[in-house]
């Protein structure tokens, strides 16, 4: 049944459940009246354009989805407040990266967000990651995406038409190993893997 009671708990549970429940919950947040406008107002009042604001709004949803799935959202504030806080923090980071802003990021929710190092890796190595992902093939990408979303091997076997959960598990291992090798064989990743960033 479709969920009509969209409390914060229901949204968080939908995102964590995955599949169509996650889609519905994220869509609900994405189209929630007033939420986008709040982010747009903030970004535009702080030196951004409407396009910057739209980008930040989308990035905020990506981060919120990840944080909720990885258990970083602790429900210390309403989900929409958390969303807006992520967007504000993200806008501060973007401005700082572009050398337009030097203020330190807000700290009142820093235990609920990803480490600054992870965020830097994500930004700096984005293209290299995408290059590696492009080389593992469509089937591997789909399998690893489902794996990343915590689907069980039974579910993955069913969705991807594998004969059994065991076959799916072996395939996941093969795909993951291939991805790892691509990262390891790329000299650009060496300092990152050896923890001696340039």
């Amino acid at each position: 049944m479709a969920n009509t009671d969209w409390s914060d708990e229901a949204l968080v549970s939908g995102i964590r459940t995955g599949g169509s429940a996650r889609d519905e919950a994220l869509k609900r947040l994405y189209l929630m009246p007033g939420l986008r406008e709040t982010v747009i107002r903030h970004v535009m009042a702080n030196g951004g354009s409407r396009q910057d604001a739209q980008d930040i709004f989308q990035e905020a949803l990506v981060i919120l989805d990840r944080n909720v799935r990885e258990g970083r959202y602790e429900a210390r504030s309403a989900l929409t407040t958390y969303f807006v806080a992520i967007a504000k923090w993200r806008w501060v980071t973007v401005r700082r990266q572009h050398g337009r802003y030097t203020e330190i990021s807000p700290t009142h929710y820093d235990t609920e967000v990803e480490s600054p190092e992870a965020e830097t890796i994500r930004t700096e190595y984005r293209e290299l990651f995408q290059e590696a992902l492009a080389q593992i093939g469509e089937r591997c990408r789909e399998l690893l995406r489902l794996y990343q979303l915590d689907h069980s091997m039974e579910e993955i076997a069913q969705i991807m038409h594998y004969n059994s959960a065991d076959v799916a598990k072996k395939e996941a291992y093969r795909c993951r190993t291939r991805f790892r090798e691509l990262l390891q064989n790329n000299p650009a990743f060496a300092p990152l893997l050896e923890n001696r960033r340039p």
Partner: protein
Amino acid sequence: MPPAERQAFEAEMARDAELEALVRQHRIERIGLEMLVEQELRAKMRAWDRETELLQQLQPRRARIQPLTWVLRAAAVVAALAVGYWLLRDRLSDTPAQPDIVQTQPKPKKQTPTWRKPARQPGATGEHNMAQNDLPPAPIEEMQPNGPAIDYAAVADEFFTERDFLPPRGAKGGSKAYLEGLKNLQDGRYQDVTSTFKPELVPAPTAEDVQQQELLAVAYYKNGQYADAEMTFRRIAISRMQPYAQRAEWGVVLSILKQMPQRQSALDSALDVVLRQPEHQFYTKAQQLRERL
């Protein structure tokens, strides 16, 4: 991880360089793999934006339709009044005039015209009696613009691959009902499949629900019920559950192709849905199809 446990683990990592390297590698891999989830979510956001744009486009049209309805209603009332007046006027003019007092001879009574059956032409059939202008309308196919004839059905056959939608023969993943249906389909018993599964999808479907609908859509397609196949594929596409939704978007294209040439605009928009997403599983095939057409 609870803070105490986390601290203990970090302390252990500080002591064990190998463990630290492993954890680091695992973290980096996860960051990379998260990009797959992000890409998919961004594609979804684009789709939601398109939906919203479409709704916004429809909104003013609805608003325009409202006054238009009133104008049409008023026009209908005026037309009805005009027809009424015209009939009334005719009837009034048909009323015989008051006899002139001076006139002694009564006017000859107006005779009602008698209808005569037209003389039947010897050997003429009813169809031949039909006037030249009363020819039946040309079938829709004949109204299509002239161009090189395309055998759409053959093109669809060329692009349809069962493996795109179904697992190979003997696959074991799936519920008992699904596997039975799959075997029936692969053995050519399409009607067994179409009579087993209901053509409907619950609002928050599970992967199994969508899988069964996919089986049903392919069975309709293989059975030549292309309109039913199209509707079933559309239902799956709307669920947005991947990878079924992308496969279904491609299924919609092929089902419409089988209904060509009557569905040109539907085919164009179904192809556009795939071609708007370069990351789509069937993007290359859709490009090839558009070039063929």
